[in-house]
């Protein structure tokens, strides 16, 4: 067999297996989304958000933590604008992820990029970046990961909202699901001393802000000021070296 035809066969098998490989890479995400999605659905139900609205939110927003915050804020009677603004700040981190993954998606059609952007989450970003760095990964495998995770999210939040009608408020520790998820996500973020300091600052500022200033501006206020202080700490430390 000459080199050209062998390469052709290799490309052909590559094309056939892109969906399977994408699915294999995405199942841990999907599996992880199920309990969180169910918990969100149950919480939404307890906050008296109808099932159709939960499905609608999962399709239109597709952002786990922002959706939890939205449910919590709706339950606390927050205004629509403050929820949208909080969502924006919470999801600003995707800006960084989108910039980082863009390097691996150059010379693709802009329509594809616009569709791909919808599926960028903390989890799909982490999985796709790991595979892109290892090589043998492409845009079709990557968007398969995004969209299967999206499907698992929409399905599990909807099921959670349906099942939630059968579960009394706060049963089985559902009231703690959000807190536990934030704790785990926080832990995965603590890469070095700068992150730990930023976290401590944010905690202190948020408590003080929460106690003295009414409303829910403490989320944006504490996170933006702690990140800024943390950034200056990092710069001072780098200059001293």
């Amino acid at each position, binding site marked *: 067999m000459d080199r050209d035809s062998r390469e052709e066969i290799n490309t052909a098998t590559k094309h056939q297996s892109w969906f399977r490989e994408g699915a294999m890479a995405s199942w841990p995400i999907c599996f*992880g989304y199920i*309990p*969180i999605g169910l*918990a969100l659905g149950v919480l939404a139900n307890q906050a008296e958000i109808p099932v159709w609205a939960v499905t*609608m*939110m999962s399709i*239109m*927003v*597709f952002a786990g933590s*922002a959706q939890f915050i*939205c449910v919590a804020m*709706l339950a606390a009677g927050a205004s629509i604008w403050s*929820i949208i603004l909080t969502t*924006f*700040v*919470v999801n600003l*981190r995707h*800006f*960084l992820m*989108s*910039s980082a993954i*863009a*390097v691996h*998606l*150059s010379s693709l059609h*802009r329509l594809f*990029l*616009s569709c791909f*952007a*919808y599926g960028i989450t903390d*989890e799909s970003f982490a999985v796709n970046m790991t595979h892109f760095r290892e090589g043998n990964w492409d845009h079709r495998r990557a968007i398969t990961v995004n969209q299967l995770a999206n499907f698992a999210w929409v399905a599990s939040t909807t099921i959670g909202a349906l099942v939630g009608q059968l579960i009394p408020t706060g*049963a*089985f*520790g*559902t009231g703690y*699901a959000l807190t536990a998820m*934030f*704790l*785990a996500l*926080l*832990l*995965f973020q603590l890469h070095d001393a*700068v*992150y730990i300091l*930023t*976290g*401590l600052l*944010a*905690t202190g*500022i*948020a*408590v003080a802000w929460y*106690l003295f200033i009414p409303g829910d501006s403490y*989320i944006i206020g*504490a*996170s933006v000021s702690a*990140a*800024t202080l*943390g*950034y200056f700490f990092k710069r001072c430390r780098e200059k001293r070296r």
Partner: protein
Amino acid sequence: MNFLDYLFLFGGMGLATYLPRWLPLFYLANRNLPKWLVDWLSLIPVAILCALLAPILFTNQTARTLELGKPEFIVAIPTLIFAVKTKSLGGTVLVGMGLYWLWGLLF
């Protein structure tokens, strides 16, 4: 809230989520962000998560006063240890819920 209220809310949230996902991919495909912005943005997730957790763990949210040693805080300790050991998001959620539920049954 009626259908239109939800449509407006989720439309706004969707746009606020989609734009940061879309803009860099669409326009900055091969350009680099300024380093200060990358550094600052990388601290945002930690800061937000702590800002969200702080009142839950350290305050009484009905009276809006300081409250140390809440069950939420005590349960957070074994939950965090589980997260350190397993690195599992789904598992940590289930363990946290289970422990919080147990705490409610016992005390």
